[in-house]
C-alpha cells in the first residue's frame, strides 16, 4: 500500500517532466534544432500504439487465452515489414496535399468531400471515446490498486467516487497537456514537436517499466524462464495456455484487424503520417517498430504465468498483475514505477488521439458548418486563426469529457482488451477506402460513402449496441435472442453466423458489406471531375514529383489571397508563408497583380493544412472572382496530358511497328530478288540443259538429212545418238516437272505403310538389265523382318532408282560393285547404297544435292545426269521426314544414305 499523497505527487511530478520535455522540444524546434527529425524518435513515437491496454491488458489476455494476445502486435509488424510501400505512399500523398488527419485524407481522395470527412470524424469520435475511456479506467484502476493493496479485487471495494474522481483529474491533466502542446500552431501540418518528443519519451518509460516488472517476475520471483514455465506447466489450466489452441480463425482475424489498425487509428495516422519529418525515417521504423513491439511483449506470458501462480485463487484481476505482483512481493517502488509506465502508456495515447480528433472535429465538422451557415459572419472577422485554435481546444476538452462519461457509465462492463478491439474494428472500416483508394482510380465518393457507412452501421449493431446491452442500457435479451426475438438478427450471430468471437464476427460482416458496397457502387458510379482529379493525384502521386497542376482559377489578386490566408493562418504565419513562397520561386511577389495558378495552389495547400482540404477549397473558390477556370477545365488539361502521353505511346508503338514492317519488307524484297535471281538462274540452267541434247538431235538430224550418201554403220550410229538424246531430253523435262512439283508442294503424295524391301526389289528389277550390261555386281542385303515405313511407294521407288542408277553411272565398267544395305534404327530406317566409283571430293559432298550441280567427269562418254536427280532425291526424302547424305573418300567409292521414318515409331 502506497500513501495517496505520495502517489499523486509522483504522478504530478512525472507529468511535469513530460511538460518540461515537450516545452524543451518546442523551444528547440523554434530555434531550428528539431529533436524529432530523427528516425529513432519517429519509431518511438509510433510506439504510442502500445497503450495502457498493452501495458495491463495484454497480461490479462495472456492469462486467459495464452498466445491470444499476440495478433495485436503481429499485425503492425506485418504492416511495417510488408506494407511499408503503402505507408510510404500515404506519407507522400499527405505531404504533397498537406493532409492533416485521416478524415482529411479520405475526404481529399474522394473529391474533397465534406460529407466523407464529417462521417469519418463522427466515426472517429464514436470509436475513440470508448478507447479513451479505457485509458482513464486503466489509470484509475492502477491508482486504486496501489492505493488499496491488498484489498483489491476485480470489482474493487473502494467507493465509486474515488475512482471517478481519479479519472476526472487524469482527464483534466491530459486535456491540459493536449491543449498546450497539440494546439500551438494553426497549421496542423506543422509538426507538434513537443508532443512527439514527449510521447517518444513515454514510449521509453513504459518499455523500461514493463521490462523491469518482467525481469523481476522472471528472475526475482522465479529462477528464469525455464523455472517459471515448467512450474506453470504443472498446473493443468496453465498448460492449456501454452498450446497453440488460440491460433484459430479468430486469431487470424485479429491479426488482420491489427494490420489495419496501425494505419487507420487516428493517433497512428497522426504519428506515422502527419508527424513524419522525412520519408526515409520510415525505412528505419520498418524494423525499429517491430523490435519495440517484440521487446514489450517478451514478458507478457511470464508475468501472466507468474500472476496465475502467485494468485491461484483468482482473487486478483489478471489485468492488474503488473502492479499486484511487485506489491505482493513487497516492492512498492517497482510497483510505483510500473504505475508510471502504465500512466505513460495511457497519457501518450490520449494526448495524440485527442489532438488528432480535435483537428478532425474542427476541420471536418465545425468549419464546414461555419462556412456554410455563417459565412457572412465569418467574413467580418479579420483573423480566424484564434477561433480555429479555440475550436480545437474545445474539441479536446469535449472528447476527454465524453471519454470520462463513457468510463463512468459503461466502462465497467468490459475487460480492457475487449474495449480496445471494439475501437480497432471501427477504425478498420476506413481501411478499404483509404488503402484501395490509393491504388484504384475508379473508386468514387459515393462508393466510399456507401462502404464506410455500411461498415459503420454493422459495427454499431454488432459491437457497440451489445456493449450498451451488457452495461444494462439495453435489455440483455437483445444479445441473447436478437431484437424483438428475431434470432437471425442476434448481434453476435448475425444471419446465423456462429462460432466466431464477437470481434471477428463483426469484422467479417462489416468489412464484407464495406468492401462490397465500396467496389460495387464505385463500379456503377460516375465520378465527378473533382473526384477524378483527386483520384489521379493520389494514385499517381509518385509520378508527379511532388507537384501537380491541380488548382487553377480565374482572376484573383495576390492581395485577396493573402487576406484569405491571414484570416485563417494569422498575420504572422501568412507573412512567413508568402515570404517562403517568394523565396522558393526566387522572385518578389507583386501583391497587386493577379495571382497565378501556382500561388493559388500554394495558398490552398496552406489553408488545407489549417482547415482541411475540403474547406480550403470552398474558401479559395469563393474568393476567386469571375468565371475562373473550372475543375472541368483542369481535368481536361490533365486528360489532354494523359491523352498526349497515350498518343505519344501509340506513336512510338506505330513507329516501331513501321520500322518492323520496313525491315520485314526489306527482307521480303531481298528474298524476292534472290528468288528472282534463282528463278532466272534456274530458267537459264534449264534452258542450257534442254538445249544441249537438242543441239545433238538437230545436228545429227540435219546431217542425216543433208548427207544421203552416209554409210549404213555411220547412219545407224547417228540415229542411235538422236534416239538417246531424245530420251535424255524427255527424262530431263520429267525431272524438271517433278522437282517443281516437290518444291512448290503440288506433288500428290500417296502416303501409306510401305515395305522398303519391296521398294528396293522393284528398283533393282527395273535396273537389272543396265547393271548386267555394264557388268556391275549388285549385292542387296535385306533383313528377314522389317517393319513398314511411312511414305509414298512410287516416290520411294523413284528415289531408289535414282540412287542406284547414279551408282551405276559412276561405277567402272566390268569391275563395278554396288551394295545396298538396310539398317533399322529406333525410329528411322537407314538405307545405304555404296559404289566403288571414283568418289566425290569432300567440297562437293554437300553441293551435289543442289539443283543442276554436276560432278562432271567428261571421261566416261556417258551423258552425265541432268543434275536434277539428287535434288529430287533430297526433295522426296525431306518430304517424308528423313535425311539424305553421302560419305565418300575420293578414289574409294561413295556411299549414299537416306532415312525414312517407320510407320509406328
Amino acid at each position: 500500500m502506497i500513501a495517496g499523497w505520495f502517489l499523486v505527487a509522483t504522478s504530478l511530478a512525472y507529468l511535469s517532466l513530460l511538460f518540461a520535455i515537450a516545452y524543451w522540444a518546442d523551444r528547440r524546434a523554434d530555434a531550428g534544432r528539431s529533436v524529432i527529425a530523427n528516425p529513432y524518435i519517429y519509431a518511438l513515437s509510433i510506439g504510442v500504439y502500445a497503450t495502457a491496454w498493452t501495458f495491463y491488458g495484454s497480461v490479462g489476455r495472456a492469462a486467459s487465452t495464452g498466445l491470444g494476445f499476440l495478433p495485436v502486435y503481429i499485425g503492425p509488424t506485418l504492416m511495417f515489414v510488408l506494407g511499408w510501400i503503402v505507408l510510404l505512399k500515404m506519407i507522400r500523398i499527405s505531404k504533397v496535399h498537406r493532409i492533416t488527419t485521416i478524415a482529411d485524407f479520405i475526404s481529399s481522395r474522394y473529391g474533397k468531400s465534406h460529407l466523407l470527412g464529417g462521417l469519418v470524424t463522427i466515426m472517429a469520435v464514436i470509436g475513440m471515446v470508448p478507447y479513451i475511456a479505457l485509458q482513464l479506467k486503466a489509470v484509475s484502476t492502477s491508482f486504486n490498486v496501489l492505493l488499496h493493496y491488498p484489498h483489491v479485487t476485480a470489482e474493487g471495494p473502494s467507493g465509486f467516487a474515488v475512482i471517478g474522481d481519479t479519472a476526472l483529474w487524469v482527464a483534466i491533466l491530459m486535456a491540459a497537456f493536449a491543449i498546450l502542446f497539440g494546439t500551438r500552431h494553426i497549421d496542423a501540418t506543422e509538426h507538434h514537436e513537443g508532443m512527439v518528443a514527449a510521447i517518444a519519451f513515454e514510449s521509453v518509460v513504459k518499455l523500461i517499466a514493463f521490462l523491469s516488472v518482467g525481469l523481476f517476475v522472471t528472475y526475482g520471483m522465479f529462477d528464469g524462464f525455464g523455472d517459471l514455465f515448467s512450474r506453470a506447466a504443472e498446473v493443468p489450466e496453465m498448460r492449456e495456455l501454452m498450446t497453440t489452441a488460440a491460433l484459430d480463425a479468430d486469431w487470424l482475424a485479429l491479426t488482420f484487424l491489427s494490420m489495419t489498425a496501425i494505419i487507420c487509428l487516428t493517433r497512428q495516422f497522426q504519428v506515422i503520417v502527419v508527424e513524419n519529418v522525412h520519408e526515409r525515417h520510415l525505412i528505419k521504423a520498418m524494423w525499429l517498430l517491430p523490435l519495440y513491439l517484440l521487446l514489450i511483449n517478451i514478458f507478457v506470458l511470464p508475468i501472466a504465468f507468474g500472476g496465475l501462480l502467485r494468485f491461484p485463487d483468482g482473487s486478483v484481476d489478471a489485468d492488474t498483475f503488473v502492479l499486484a505482483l511487485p506489491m505482493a512481493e513487497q516492492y512498492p517502488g517497482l510497483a510505483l514505477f510500473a504505475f508510471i509506465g502504465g500512466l505513460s502508456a495511457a497519457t501518450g495515447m490520449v494526448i495524440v488521439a485527442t489532438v488528432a480528433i480535435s483537428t478532425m472535429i474542427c476541420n471536418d465538422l465545425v468549419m464546414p458548418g461555419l462556412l456554410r451557415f455563417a459565412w457572412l459572419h465569418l467574413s467580418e472577422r479579420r483573423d480566424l486563426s484564434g477561433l480555429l485554435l479555440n475550436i480545437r481546444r474545445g474539441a479536446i476538452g469535449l472528447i476527454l469529457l465524453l471519454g470520462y462519461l463513457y468510463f463512468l457509465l459503461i466502462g465497467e462492463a468490459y475487460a480492457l482488451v475487449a474495449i480496445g478491439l471494439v475501437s480497432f474494428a471501427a477504425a478498420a472500416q476506413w481501411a478499404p477506402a483509404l488503402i484501395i483508394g490509393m491504388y484504384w482510380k475508379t473508386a468514387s465518393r459515393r462508393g466510399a460513402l456507401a462502404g464506410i457507412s455500411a461498415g459503420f452501421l454493422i459495427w454499431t449493431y454488432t459491437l457497440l449496441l451489445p456493449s450498451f446491452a451488457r452495461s444494462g442500457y439495453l435489455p440483455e435479451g437483445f444479445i441473447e435472442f436478437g431484437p424483438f426475438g428475431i434470432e437471425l438478427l442476434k448481434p453476435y450471430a448475425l444471419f446465423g453466423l456462429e462460432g466466431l468471437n464477437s470481434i471477428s464476427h463483426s469484422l467479417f460482416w462489416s468489412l464484407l458489406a464495406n468492401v462490397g458496397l465500396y467496389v460495387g457502387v464505385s463500379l456503377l458510379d460516375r465520378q465527378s471531375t473533382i473526384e477524378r482529379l483527386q483520384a489521379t493525384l493520389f494514385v499517381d502521386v509518385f509520378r508527379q514529383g511532388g507537384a501537380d497542376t491541380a488548382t487553377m482559377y480565374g482572376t484573383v489578386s495576390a492581395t485577396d489571397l493573402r487576406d484569405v490566408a491571414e484570416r485563417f493562418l494569422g498575420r504572422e504565419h501568412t507573412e512567413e508563408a508568402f515570404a517562403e513562397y517568394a523565396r522558393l520561386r526566387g522572385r518578389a511577389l507583386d501583391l497587386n497583380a493577379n495571382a497565378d495558378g501556382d500561388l493559388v495552389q500554394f495558398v490552398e495547400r496552406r489553408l488545407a493544412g489549417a482547415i482541411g482540404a475540403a474547406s480550403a477549397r470552398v474558401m479559395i473558390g469563393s474568393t476567386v472572382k469571375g468565371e475562373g477556370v473550372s475543375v472541368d477545365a483542369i481535368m481536361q488539361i490533365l486528360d489532354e496530358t494523359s491523352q498526349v502521353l497515350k498518343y505519344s505511346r501509340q506513336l512510338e508503338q506505330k513507329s516501331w511497328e513501321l520500322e518492323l514492317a520496313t525491315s520485314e519488307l526489306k527482307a521480303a524484297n531481298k528474298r524476292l530478288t534472290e528468288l528472282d535471281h534463282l528463278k532466272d538462274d534456274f530458267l537459264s540452267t534449264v534452258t542450257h540443259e534442254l538445249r544441249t541434247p537438242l543441239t545433238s538431235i538437230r545436228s545429227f538430224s540435219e546431217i542425216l538429212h543433208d548427207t544421203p550418201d552416209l554409210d549404213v554403220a555411220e547412219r545407224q550410229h547417228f540415229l542411235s545418238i538422236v534416239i538417246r538424246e531424245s530420251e535424255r531430253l524427255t527424262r530431263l523435262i520429267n525431272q524438271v516437272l517433278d522437282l517443281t512439283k516437290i518444291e512448290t508442294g503440288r506433288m500428290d503424295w500417296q502416303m501409306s505403310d510401305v515395305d522398303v524391301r519391296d521398294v528396293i526389289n522393284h528398283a533393282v528389277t527395273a535396273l537389272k538389265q543396265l547393271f548386267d550390261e555394264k557388268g556391275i555386281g549388285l549385292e542387296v542385303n535385306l533383313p528377314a523382318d522389317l517393319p513398314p515405313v511411312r511414305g509414298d511407294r512410287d516416290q520411294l521407288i523413284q528415289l531408289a532408282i535414282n540412287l542406284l542408277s547414279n551408282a551405276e553411272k559412276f561405277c567402272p565398267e566390268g569391275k563395278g560393285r554396288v551394295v545396298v544395305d538396310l539398317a533399322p534404327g529406333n525410329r528411322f530406317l537407314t538405307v545405304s547404297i555404296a559404289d566403288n566409283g571414283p568418289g566425290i571430293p569432300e567440297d562437293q559432298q554437300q553441293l551435289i544435292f543442289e539443283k543442276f550441280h554436276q560432278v562432271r567427269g567428261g571421261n566416261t562418254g556417258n551423258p552425265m545426269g541432268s543434275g536434277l536427280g539428287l535434288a529430287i532425291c533430297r526433295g522426296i526424302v525431306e518430304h517424308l521426314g528423313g535425311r539424305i547424305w553421302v560419305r565418300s573418300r575420293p578414289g574409294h567409292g561413295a556411299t549414299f544414305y537416306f532415312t525414312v521414318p517407320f510407320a509406328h515409331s
Partner: protein
Amino acid sequence: MAKSILVVEDEPNIVLSLQFLMKQAGFEVRVARDGEEALREVEDKAPDLILLDVMIPKRDGYDVCQTIRANPDWREIYIIMLTAKGRDVDRDKGLSLGANDYVTKPFSTRDLTEKVKHILSGAG
C-alpha cells in the same frame, strides 16, 4: 594447205557432229574437251578458227577466249563462241571479251558450215 579448226566442247555427241561437219567441209579438225586442253592445243599449233563452247570444265569459254586475245600472236585466230545460254548478256560478254562471232545452240548445221567456210575462205 587445209585450214585448221579447233573444236572446244565437252558434250561428246556435239563434238562428234561438229567434227563430222567440219571434216566434211574439208577442214582439219582438232578437239579439246576442256579449257586447259584447248589452250594447250592453241599453244601447240594455233588454229585458224576455234568453235568454243562456253560451258566447259576447268577453264570456261570466256576465260579461254580472253587468254587467247591477250596474246598478240593469236590475234588472227577467228573465235566463234557456242553456247546453250541464249541470253543477251551472255552474247555481249563473249563479244566484248574478243570473240568474233556467237552462235546459239541448237544451231543450223548448214548456217554454221557456210559461216565457217566463208570466214576461212575470205581470210585465206
